[in-house]
């Protein structure tokens, strides 16, 4: 039986980007585990529970009443009760200033190889989106190492919405080469980025920005390089790109298709989709 590892933020995940892929996994008979950065209980982004919430760039509500109800009625505590703690699983790189840096670095790489053995249990990794991932996933060195472990094992890596940024930044310290270099991917484009009112959940309240702290489209265009290609698919309702081992999904509306293509890749051996 196939088994998927699903990584979520502790600062708000987007309900639809979790439940629709999970529906596909359940239908296909896949097992799945959840993991969060420090083992804390993940919670849904409030906007993803509100069927009246109008996404400013799209100018329409993005959450159906049915999904909003599912999100509100779900007992998240029992749903996530067996979640894993990434900080307890994966080591973190030492600082240059640590005593005996080379020794510390060797120790880190040895620990990482050991930690990667647990990836044998899984057939694929899915990173769930929302604005929370910008707080604790995008530049999380342990998550980068988890991604590199799945990449080295040749396993499927799916990323939705802002978590696609994690793929651009997961790099070996010495090569600093992006694993997306030369690949095809999709992601949030400028047209779909907020120009005002973008918010993060910060210690019990929303912290409002103008735009998100980075322009994902430009990060991805730069990182795929001249041999790769970024596909914005602006104006298409969905945008999902599979260039094995990477499955990237632009945003909320692509969640269902993302789950479908994820299953086809694992079950049917599909390696290319959407380009």
């Amino acid at each position, binding site marked *: 039986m196939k088994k998927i590892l699903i990584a979520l933020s502790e600062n708000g995940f987007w309900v639809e980007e979790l439940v629709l892929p999970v529906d596909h996994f359940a239908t296909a008979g896949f097992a799945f585990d959840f993991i969060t950065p420090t083992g804390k209980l993940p919670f849904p982004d409030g906007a993803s529970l509100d069927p009246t919430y109008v996404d400013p760039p799209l100018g329409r509500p993005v959450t159906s009443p049915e999904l909003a109800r599912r999100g509100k009625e779900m007992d998240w505590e029992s749903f996530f009760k067996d979640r894993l703690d990434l900080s307890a699983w994966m080591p973190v790189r030492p600082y240059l200033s640590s005593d005996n840096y080379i020794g510390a670095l060797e120790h880190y790489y040895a620990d990482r190889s050991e930690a990667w053995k647990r990836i044998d249990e899984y057939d694929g990794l899915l990173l769930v989106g929302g604005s929370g991932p910008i707080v604790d996933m995008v*530049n999380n060195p342990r998550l980068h190492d988890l991604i590199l472990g799945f990449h080295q094992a040749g396993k499927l890596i799916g990323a939705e919405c802002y978590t696609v940024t994690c793929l651009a930044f997961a790099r070996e310290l010495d090569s600093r080469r992006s694993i997306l270099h030369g690949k095809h991917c999709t992601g949030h484009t400028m047209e779909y980025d907020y120009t005002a009112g973008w918010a993060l959940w910060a210690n019990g309240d929303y912290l409002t920005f103008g*735009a998100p702290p980075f322009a994902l489209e430009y990060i991805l265009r730069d990182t795929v390089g001249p041999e790769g290609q970024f596909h914005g698919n602006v104006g298409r309702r969905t945008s999902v790109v599979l260039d094995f081992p990477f499955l990237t999904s632009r945003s909320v509306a692509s969640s269902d298709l993302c789950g479908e293509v994820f299953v086809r890749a694992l079950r049917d051996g599909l390696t290319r989709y959407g380009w």
Partner: protein
Amino acid sequence: MSKILVAASNYGLWAEELQAPWDALKNAGHDLTLTTYLGKTPLPGKISMDPEFVDPMQKIRMNPPALLNRVNEILDTGEWDHPVKFSDARMSDHDVLVIVGGAGSALDVAGNMLVHSLVLEAYKSGKTIGALCYAVAALAFTRDPDNGMKSVIHGKQVTAHPHAWDFTGDLEYEVVRAVPGNPDIRLKTSGFVFPLQYMVEDAVGPKGKVHSPADASREKPCVVWDAPFVTGLSVESAVLFGDKLVEVLGDPGQSR
């Protein structure tokens, strides 16, 4: 004398990164206008005002008493109060744009489209543009519509805060002198919200070059001038960054 627009963060400034270029440019007789996202005083991050803070890389106290006295003097006199909002700043009113860093600059400066508009206008009109530390990200994210939406630093030489210096643990954005109308943002992120060096290396492309010496120090600061950009590595290079801007503005014939 040049009219200089100086942009800083409202979510946690590194004190010296504004103070050093601010004083250098002011003392050289330039006319400075401060601008921030919210139009509030850019409050320095707590660590950058802690006299006991020892830089883990350089293993020295980074905030000597004279520096802290000067920053407190500026804050006491209100010299940084009432900055212009980014949305009200006009590049056409200024000859030079300088953007300074600090942890907060990754939040409200780097991805801010209002800042990108200022950078693009300065770039298109041949004005000198300075960026220090994480503020270099704002250059990387400013795209040139006449060059395939590549970054304005594509093919250029710039500095980028070394990845080896990036925090691996949680980063908080606590500031000094917080008041109800200009509070701490109470956010905790997993390090900076993006790794600057990786992102800038991608943005300059194969023909550009990124300077990220992990052994830079107050004795060995790192500032790069590749016209129209003057970029500086981090706080240890803040003084040289200010001095270099003064030199560049005084000698318009040179270009790198």
